[in-house]
């Protein structure tokens, strides 16, 4: 069956909304995606018919809730190509997944050890490593970027960035600002060659690409539910099981233990070891439904649509006077994520601040994000303080891009009126 985007849009009730006098053009999916009716229904059905706590409740509802929760894990594991569902640790979001990775992997770090990230990372893949280095005395180092917004692998090689002291490398799979798809397998090979663990922030990749974590080269991959048509409140850390089994606990509490005595405790095997307390149960059910939904659409077709709509957006935005796209303006052989960030200036060269752009676009029904998109160091590296970002997903259509372009032209003329 061919990819019928209008039919797909009818699965998402919110896309029928109007904002003031305009139809909603939701171009903020890299921030959070909208939810199809099947995901909403799955969560409502769970609360209406099967709600109970998991694992510890022994009654019928408890068994149903446990089965639904673990069913969500199985669906997510299958969706990302994990070897087994037990490699999927549920967290509350990708940030918590990365913090889990930093805390557990970092437990043995010492002064002299090095952690490698990149300047294009989201804050959630920067700050946990900064905190880790501050705790342990390890050194944080990072990849720079090229003028095209790709990781500068040559500079990294000549600067011996990944070396015998490197213990952890953590890189975003797809940039949330530039849309760059990073060569994860290549960097993972470099990390593994020096005995380092490869962590990947997959928050922007798992929703858009056909993902096979087991074949990615990564040892740990963090991602979140709400960017992949699932609910908020649930994310995941996938890890190779032997690695997870070797890691110490993260948060302590109920369900993560084996035996608790006042003199000390022993801990459950993964994934329970990392899931203290009552987990996000209905959210796991919703995320399982989201994984099913994406699987039925076919991730190859989702990725192809993303590419088509991003190509159209790059072409359209490229024709707006005074607009400068950050990073690559073409889709390379490695592909490109569906986020396009840009700056806008009036005819006389006045920079229109992204918050002003966002406010104007919002008044014309176009939802985008303005600011540093949780990537302040990247903006600083690019010599700017903020940008406007339009981001697309499996339900984005060309008329929404056209509405964006019209609104940008209008904004530019408004701010240029005094020129």
């Amino acid at each position, binding site marked *: 069956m061919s990819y019928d985007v209008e039919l797909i849009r009818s699965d998402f009730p919110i896309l029928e909304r109007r904002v003031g006098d305009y139809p909603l053009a939701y171009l903020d999916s890299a921030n959070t995606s909208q939810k199809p009716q099947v995901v909403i229904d799955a969560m409502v059905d769970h609360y209406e018919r099967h709600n109970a706590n998991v694992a510890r409740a022994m009654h019928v509802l408890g068994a149903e809730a446990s089965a639904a929760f673990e069913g969500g894990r199985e669906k997510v594991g299958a969706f990302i190509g994990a070897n087994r569902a037990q490699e999927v640790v549920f967290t509350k979001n990708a940030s918590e997944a990365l913090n889990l990775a930093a805390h557990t992997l970092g437990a043995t770090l010492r002064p002299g050890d090095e952690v490698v990230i990149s300047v294009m990372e989201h804050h959630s893949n920067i700050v946990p490593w900064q905190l880790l280095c501050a705790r342990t005395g390890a050194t944080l180092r990072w990849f720079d970027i090229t003028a095209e917004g790709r990781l500068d692998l040559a500079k990294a090689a000549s600067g011996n960035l990944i070396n015998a002291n490197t213990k952890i490398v953590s890189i975003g799979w797809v940039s949330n600002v530039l849309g760059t798809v990073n060569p994860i397998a290549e960097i993972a090979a470099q990390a593994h060659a020096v005995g380092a663990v490869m962590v990947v922030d997959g928050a922007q990749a798992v929703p858009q690409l056909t993902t096979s974590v087991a074949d990615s080269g990564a040892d740990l991959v963090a991602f979140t539910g709400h960017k992949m048509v699932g609910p908020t409140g649930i994310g995941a850390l996938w890890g190779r099981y032997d690695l997870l089994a070797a890691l110490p606990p993260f948060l302590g509490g109920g369900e993560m233990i084996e035996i608790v005595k006042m003199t000390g405790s022993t801990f459950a095997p993964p994934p329970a070891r990392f899931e203290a307390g009552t987990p996000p149960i209905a959210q796991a059910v919703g995320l399982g439904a989201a994984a099913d939904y994406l699987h039925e659409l076919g991730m190859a077709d989702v990725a192809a649509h993303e590419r088509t709509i991003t190509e159209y957006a790059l072409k359209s935005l490229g024709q707006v006077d005074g607009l400068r796209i950050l990073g690559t303006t073409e889709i390379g052989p490695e592909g490109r994520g569906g986020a396009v960030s840009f700056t806008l200036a009036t005819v006389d060269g006045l920079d229109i*601040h992204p*918050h002003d752009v966002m*406010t104007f676009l*919002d*008044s014309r029904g176009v939802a985008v994000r303005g*600011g540093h998109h949780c990537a302040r160091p990247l903006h600083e590296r690019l010599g700017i*303080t903020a940008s406007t970002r339009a981001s697309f997903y499996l339900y984005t259509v060309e008329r929404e891009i056209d509405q964006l372009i019209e609104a940008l032209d209008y904004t530019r003329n*408004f701010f240029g009126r005094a020129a």
Partner: protein
Amino acid sequence: MSVEAMYQEIILDHYRAKHHAGLRDPYGAQVTHVNPTCGDEVMLRVALDGDTVTDVSYEGVGCSISQASTSVMSDLVIGRTVPQALELHERFTEMMHSRGEVEPDEEHLEDAIAFIGVAKFPARVKCALLGWSAFKDAAVQALAGETTKEF
């Protein structure tokens, strides 16, 4: 309230040509205030002679609302005493939290009443307040410094 009405000519004029911009010596106190959610930043200095504001100088990055508001604020407070300037801060803050439902106090706030439209957009109120909050912080610190000097 339309977005066009929020961006009054006077706001765009101040955004294009900020008054009293740049960091100058001497100064009694310097502060940095940020809006972490949007990344707007202002570093601001206040110079006093006794309790009179003789200069406000600043460097900042941010949207037209935050930049223009800082510019208008500096026009208003320079030459006033700290208590008078802090009273203006009170009046401006009150207007910005009114959701645009009060009659703006042109007698005291002068050009700053141009920001009444911003009060209708809750997400942008903090933009208009950034420079004013930095001024209050710096003025209070500078005044404390002046007081210490006297004794």
